[in-house]
């Protein structure tokens, strides 16, 4: 998988720039979901959390004048929604998938409702790091204008991969996700671990949302997310619950999304709907070629309801 994702570094600058610009929310949401799913729960409602994060981040940035406070509050708002999901799902016989869909509705609804006054104002946005200044080409300069959150996302992916493998906390999360009975036998509080993981996942998704409203495209309105949160959840299964693969998947998906506009801007004008569907076709194609009917998905947490 990594090799395919690496291949995208060879395609034109617009796609590279697009990948960097567009991938960050996918990355954060999928890392959050990765953590949640590793603990054995699925939260399909991160779309709602993402939108809530986008709204609250923008609103707080506008009110305080500091975009970073906005990012923090976006994370906290996401954490609150994640906590809600975690607590409700801790009740016996409650379907985490269904609650996720309910949360999607609630999060979007709250964000739209409370976000009305912030569509018009212009809030301070996050600064960019100009990593392309060595180049004389303005295109490369623009493509390599990178937000700190993107780098933070990469660091987080690496840290998460390491933590799952090598820390006690990571092992506990994985054990809870693979076999609740075994974890219980070892004396770990299964529901509490899952709830914490869902809340932490919500925090990350909220931060991902704030990237949309505070950096790219960098404003708040009700059409801001066209399903990025939902797709990011799907990307986790695609990435086989590996944090580093989530990064490549997000980059691939972001880059593929840039193909449509990039092709039109160089004069390939027909069939733009089909080009715009490239990320979905690509994801589906890779899934078809890499899945197998004879075994359960490699890396799937044993307790996860979607894969059981």
């Amino acid at each position: 998988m990594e090799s395919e994702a690496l291949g995208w570094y060879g395609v034109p600058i617009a796609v590279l720039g697009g990948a960097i610009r567009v991938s960050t929310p996918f990355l954060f949401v999928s890392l959050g979901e990765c953590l949640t799913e590793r603990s054995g729960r699925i939260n399909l409602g991160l779309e709602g959390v993402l939108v809530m994060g986008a709204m609250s981040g923008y609103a707080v940035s506008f009110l305080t004048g500091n975009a970073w406070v906005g990012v923090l509050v976006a994370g906290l708002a996401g954490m609150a929604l994640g906590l809600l999901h975690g607590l409700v799902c801790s009740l016996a016989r409650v379907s985490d998938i269904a609650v996720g869909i309910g949360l999607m509705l609630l999060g979007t609804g709250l964000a739209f409702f409370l976000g009305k006054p912030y569509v018009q104002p212009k809030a301070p946005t996050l600064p960019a790091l100009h990593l392309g200044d060595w180049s004389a080409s303005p295109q490369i300069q623009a493509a390599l204008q990178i937000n700190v959150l993107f780098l933070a996302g990469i660091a987080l992916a690496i840290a998460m991969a390491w933590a799952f493998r090598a820390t006690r906390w990571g092992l506990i999360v994985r054990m809870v996700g693979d076999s609740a009975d075994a974890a219980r036998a070892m004396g770990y509080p299964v529901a509490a671990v899952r709830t914490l993981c869902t809340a932490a996942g919500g925090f990350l998704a909220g931060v991902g949302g704030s990237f949309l409203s505070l950096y790219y495209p960098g404003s708040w309105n009700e059409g801001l997310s066209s399903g990025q949160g939902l797709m990011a959840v799907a990307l986790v299964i695609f990435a086989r619950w590996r944090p580093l693969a989530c990064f490549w998947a997000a980059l691939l998906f972001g880059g593929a999304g840039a193909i449509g506009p990039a092709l039109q801007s160089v004069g390939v004008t027909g069939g733009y709907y089909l080009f715009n569907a490239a990320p979905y076709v690509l994801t589906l194609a890779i899934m078809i070629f890499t899945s197998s009917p004879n075994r359960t998905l490699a890396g799937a947490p044993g307790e996860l309801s979607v894969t059981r």
Partner: protein
Amino acid sequence: MSHDLHNRSRRTALKTLAAGAAATAASPLWLPRAFAADFVVGVIYVGPKDDYGYSQAQAQAAAAIKKMPGVKVIEQEKVAETTDVQKVMASMIEEDGAKLVFPTSFGYFDPHMLKMAEKYPQVRFAHCGGLWTEGKHPKNTASYFGYIDECQYLNGVCAGHATKSKKLGFIAAKPIPQVLRNINAFTLGAKSVKPDITTQVIFTGDWLLPVKEAEAANSLIDQGVDVITMHVDSPKVVVETCERRGIHVCGYHADQSALAPKGYLTGAEWNWLTPYTTHVKDAMAGKPLNNFLRGGLKEGFVKPSPYGKAVSEGARKQADAIKAQMMKGDFAIFKGELKDNTGKVVVPAGTVHKQTDVVLEQMNWLVAGVIGKV
């Protein structure tokens, strides 16, 4: 026995429910009444009414109508172009007593508004953008629209002066006549300054896709485009992206100059207050419905944004001169000979289309100089 008891409990419960319903029916005073004394006007938006764009332009007119004495305005936003909008129109009429309805999205016209107009012949319907046709459409329906391509032509003039690369960009939702007319007018305006200018078009595929619109703007800028305008529902993202990348931008729908203090040249704005006032006044006075209401700069249906700092003296002069001609009503944007971008003659030499010409509302070509395909 047990059944009996259970039934009794159900009956009691039902009674309680019925009592509750009766209490509701005997509506207390604090509930907003159907607004009997006032002339009720319903306005329906397809998007949020604060979208910095299409719906907001309509909502601004609705807000001004509210101040007219004896008028009560009721509004509903984000109404889908499905049976939803039929039910919303019917609710406004049945539940609130609306006498005049403004369904403001193009997709509301056929079949939704036509169906409701047939059902409620005593109510007036004024639709934005539709092509009302005598004999084909009910008498109690009307359409209003503005010749915003006049402002797009002026956008093009300013863009033509501002561009150094001679490459302009146009970010549009879908290739429909209203959009194509704007793209063509913008390009013709620019070509009147520098004939070898080209306009690169990107269709995003839908009316509100902020990430895709930002991507489109970035792609265009990467290709050397240095002035961009757009026809999407909410231009905010495109305007802000252009400002961030340091290029010029022309606005659309509403005044977005505050979003791009450095790069904003001018913009094409609606002024829906004019048709709204006409329809409301006519309806209140019992005058017949004006079924086909159109106007441009001269009639006050559209207006350009004030010039931004980046507009040069020469650009201002030329744009002002053309605007003065438009205000007098003797400027034609589409006059022969015009070829489309495949080389076909679309307006033969000697033909001059007046703005009111409905042929222009059926435009299905892109003028030479536009890079893109319908």
